[in-house]
């Protein structure tokens, strides 16, 4: 007899696998067309497929994790299983993370095969997609945490758009500040989810390994806090209904 966690994983996989296939197909095709056509420098195509793909896939996955269950009325059944609610959410997030990261891995593989060593070294391409993957995971946690109590998928994705809009507004405002918010070592830049962009900078604006490690640590701590907040709220009754 399968364990409850195994069953949960299988259920999530069945629900999310089309998103994984969709992401792999579209991101892989987009990357291949862009790198073959060379409309933009390779870094531009890597940025478009990686960063935009990460943002879109994380929003798409996040809207289907909890809000969809609530909308269909199946969340109560899940919470009634003999596992802690936190385990249910973590299982969902694990499968969601796979659905976010697999398309980026496919795009990275396509980029390395088609353009490795052409304008960017294979190492830089992989590093850029690593940064995009980090952004995808952060965005998934942010979108899930803030959309956790939404009764429908539409409202969950609306919350994701609002979160992204707030990030962007903060980015615009802080960019105009005089002390260089995104300079290496600035905590504001490291705490901002757009901080992953250092992994996409050109070799002329390189960053130190220490800066990258500090950025990852700050963003991991931030995501961890958000995850704890989400876990604390997950078992409680949600908003009424649509």
């Amino acid at each position, binding site marked *: 007899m399968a364990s409850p966690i195994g069953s949960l994983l299988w259920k999530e996989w069945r629900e999310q696998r*089309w*998103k994984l296939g*969709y992401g792999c*197909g*579209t991101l892989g*095709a*987009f990357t291949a*067309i*862009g790198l*073959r*056509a*060379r*409309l*933009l*420098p*390779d870094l*531009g195509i890597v940025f478009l497929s990686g960063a935009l793909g990460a943002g879109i896939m994380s929003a*798409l996955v996040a809207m*289907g994790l909890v809000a969809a269950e609530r909308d269909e009325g199946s969340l109560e059944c899940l919470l009634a299983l003999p596992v802690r609610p936190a385990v249910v959410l973590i299982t969902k997030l694990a499968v969601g993370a796979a659905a976010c990261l697999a398309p980026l891995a496919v795009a990275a593989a396509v980029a390395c095969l088609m353009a490795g060593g052409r*304008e960017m070294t294979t190492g830089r391409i992989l590093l850029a997609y690593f940064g995009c993957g980090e952004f995808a995971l952060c965005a998934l946690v942010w979108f899930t945490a803030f959309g956790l109590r939404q009764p*429908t*998928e*539409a409202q969950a*994705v609306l919350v994701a758009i609002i979160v992204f809009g707030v990030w962007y*507004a903060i980015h*615009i*405002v802080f960019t*105009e*500040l*005089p002390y260089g918010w995104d300079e290496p070592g600035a905590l504001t830049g490291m705490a901002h989810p757009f901080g992953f962009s250092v992994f996409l900078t050109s070799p002329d604006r390189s960053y130190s390994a220490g800066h990258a490690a500090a950025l990852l640590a700050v963003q991991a701590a931030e995501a961890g806090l958000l995850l704890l907040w989400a876990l604390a709220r997950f078992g409680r009754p949600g908003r009424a209904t649509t």
Partner: protein
Amino acid sequence: MRRDIALAWKQWRQLRWFLALGLAGFAGLPAISAALRYLKHGEDFLPDLGHEMIWMLGAPMAIIIGTAAAAPDMRDDLRAFWGSRPISLTTWLLTGYLIGLVIVVLLCILPPAVDAAALALTHEAPWFYSYGLSTMAVVPFAAGLVYSIAFLLACTVRRASHAALLSYAAGLLVLFMPLVMPPLGSLSVLNLLAESGHVAVRPADVFGSLGGPPAGLRLPFSDLYLSFSRQYYTFAGVMAAACVLVLALTRLAVGRVWRVDAGQRVVCWTGGLVVLVLFGATALQIGSNLPVRHTIAMGPPGSAPTLIALSVQASGHGGVVLLQQRQSSTAGRPPEAPAHFLRAVEMADGSPSLGPLVPVAREPSSATAGCRLLCTAASPDRAYGLLDETNMHHGEPGVEPETLVLELLTVALDGADGDPVIGCLDLLDAIPEPASFRPLNSCAYGGRLYLGSTERTVVVDLSDPDTPRVAHVVDREELRYYVTGSPDGPDRTVELRPLPLPDRKEFRHRVSGRPDGPERTVELRLLPLPDLTPRERLAVGLQLGLVGTVEQRAEGDLVVVAGREDLTTYRVTEIDEERAVLEMAGCRRATPLERYFARGVWDMVLRDGLAYVVRARSAAIVTVYDLRDPERPTLAGHYAAPKEQFDNVVVLPDGRAMLANRELHVIGLPRRLAEGE
């Protein structure tokens, strides 16, 4: 009537928050940005981002409003309620539609109007605020159509979120399909915004100088008129008609209760496929489709690309590359002189290999030293470097620019010991023009080099390859031709066209009075170059003639002019010692996407009825045109290398093309051309 007003009031209350939110975003954020710029940099307080935000976010806002205007009332329970009210379906739909449309139009007009007003108060020249006015005139039509489609989908798709996402896909098609499909180009909002002249702000006296009364809308508080092109009226008419059509379709769909149950998968795959179709169509139109045969790094393998190729020239063995060593700059110190090298490219068994580095320059004394490369097929072991140096960095303000060095260096490529520079021909006496306006064209033809400046053409004889000598100096003052600007004005814009061929609109307008196309027949005066047949003089003269972003070449009876916007072919119908008469055969206009991604023409080679054109903007693009039927020039292939900057192209005997910058690229022809179709 009271029922209609009540319905409108209900719809207004439902949608007014979108107006407030949109105005706060589209006018408020630019104001915040302007305030921060004012506080940080002390610039003028100018909220000039409103029109850009409308460009980017106007269509998404229209989709949200379109969905919000229709979806709430389309829920099954409310639909039944409205069906029971004594109000016609048409009135109900039309009221909801129009209130939303008014909000969309207000959102597209008010922020750019604020921009335009702020800029008009601080800047007198109309072009400062013409972007805002263009946005106000163009974007509402496209946003209106996107809104109409969103309204239709919200009425027919069961779930509002899915309707909105499908609307995004449809909006992408409305906005971008005309951009990537050339036949639909006149319906593209982006083309109208990017191309100048469709919405123009002109003072009244301009119309008088054009011989007509003022046309267009007079702007308030000014003597300026807003005039529109024919393409604008076509665009506006089609967009308005499409809105009416979509509204009629909506009425039909709601009346017959057509409901589509589009799931999340349908929505996602639709959106993804639309993006891929648009991206793929763009890539097919302007992306690389020529096969890359070889790429070789210019420097040692694995090293940073400090050796950059400036140009590549054909030689007897294959080619020669002129390289410049990139110097590191140090703060507080003047830039060091660039070091130049030559490197032979041997084409053995069709594969290129690079020869040893051969230093060219003889102690250049400043960073203003430049070098260009000339080679001839007759002397494959010799290359000629035209070294020039000006006083641009030495001169104090007010000091006339002066040419300090202009030498033709003879360089031995055969690896002989000792100084590879085996000869030096001083050309300062032959070409003494000041450096500021000394565009110098050069070409090798037969056993001679031709150097063309604004004043004269110098012929260098290479009958002894090691000892070049000046054979002739031909004065070409009489062949000056000014196209734009006043030659005597303080800000003169001079373009020398000793052999004028039509390309630019200004030129066409001035010469032929017909701004809609180039002239059919052009008569050229040939340069009085000795020892050449008239056809050779035509070919050399065309190559030396133009300076700037236009190139013209001749091969047999075919003359080709490649410019920013078109490629024009001419046939030589008459030619004698004095003149050549050309008749236009065909013309290929660049598509908007081609114009966007590649502008100036840097080089062109004609070979066997194919034109290899090097264009550049942010990326180097080589385009091959098939001109074997000169009346129908067709596109045969592209090659784009975004990180590279190609100065010129060399065509090898088998039709492959050789380009060089950070790397040496050898590209092939499309299969149908390579197989000699």
